[in-house]
C-alpha cells in the first residue's frame, strides 16, 4: 500500500516565477491538506481540499492556490514567488469519515528554493 507521494523532491526557482507541486494521497483517502514548513519551524497549514473544492484555508495569500482532481490527487500552485516562499512543502492525506478524519498521513515533502 503506497503512502502519500509528492513530486518533485527538490525544486529551484527564481523570484517572480510560478511553481506547481503535486501530491497523491494514501490509498483510501479522499482529503488532501497542504502545509508549509520554513527552516527551523513547525509546519503551517495552507489549505485543505476534498470533493475537488477548497474547504479550509490558513493565513496564506492568494498567490497560493490549489486543485484537487477526481482521483483525489492534488496540486499546489504558487505564483509570483518570493524569497520567503523557500520552504519544505508537505502534503497530508486523510479520510473524512469517522475517527480516521482526525489523523493525517504526511508525504516526504518537496523542498522549494527560491533564488
Amino acid at each position, binding site marked *: 500500500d503506497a503512502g502519500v507521494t509528492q513530486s518533485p523532491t527538490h525544486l529551484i526557482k527564481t523570484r517572480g516565477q510560478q511553481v506547481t507541486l503535486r501530491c497523491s494521497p494514501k490509498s483510501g483517502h479522499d482529503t488532501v491538506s497542504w502545509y508549509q514548513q520554513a527552516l527551523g519551524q*513547525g*509546519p503551517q497549514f495552507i489549505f485543505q481540499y476534498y470533493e475537488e473544492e477548497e474547504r*479550509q484555508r490558513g493565513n496564506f495569500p492568494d498567490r497560493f492556490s490549489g486543485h484537487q482532481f477526481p482521483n483525489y490527487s492534488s496540486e499546489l500552485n504558487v505564483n509570483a514567488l518570493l524569497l520567503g516562499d523557500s520552504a519544505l512543502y508537505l502534503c497530508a492525506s486523510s479520510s473524512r469519515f469517522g*475517527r480516521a478524519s482526525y489523523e*493525517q498521513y*504526511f*508525504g516526504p515533502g518537496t523542498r522549494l528554493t527560491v533564488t
Partner: protein
Amino acid sequence: AQSVTQLDSQVPVFEEAPVELRCNYSSSVSVYLFWYVQYPNQGLQLLLKYLSGSTLVKGINGFEAEFNKSQTSFHLRKPSVHISDTAEYFCAANRDDKIIFGKGTRLHILP
C-alpha cells in the same frame, strides 16, 4: 496564546538515558493529539496518537506519551534513547480538521 506549546527547543541527552519531551495544549484545540518525528531532510512520521481511551499511549520505536487532561499536557517519553533517535519531534493537535503543530524539539543524543 499558542495552541500547542513545546517547552524545550533542544534537549541533549546521553545515549541509553531516559528522555521526556514536553508538550502542552490549549483549550482552543481538540484533544486529538499527536507526536510526529522528522529525521534530517525528511518528511513527518507519526510516532503515536491519542484520540480517546487509555491515557497512556504507546507508539513506534519504544516511545510513549501520557495524556493529562488536568494539566493539559501530552509529554513524550522513552526509557532509553539511541543515537538513531536524533531528530526533530513535533507535538500536534487536530483543530477543525487542521493539524496545529508546536515549534518542535530537537533531540540531541550525546555519545
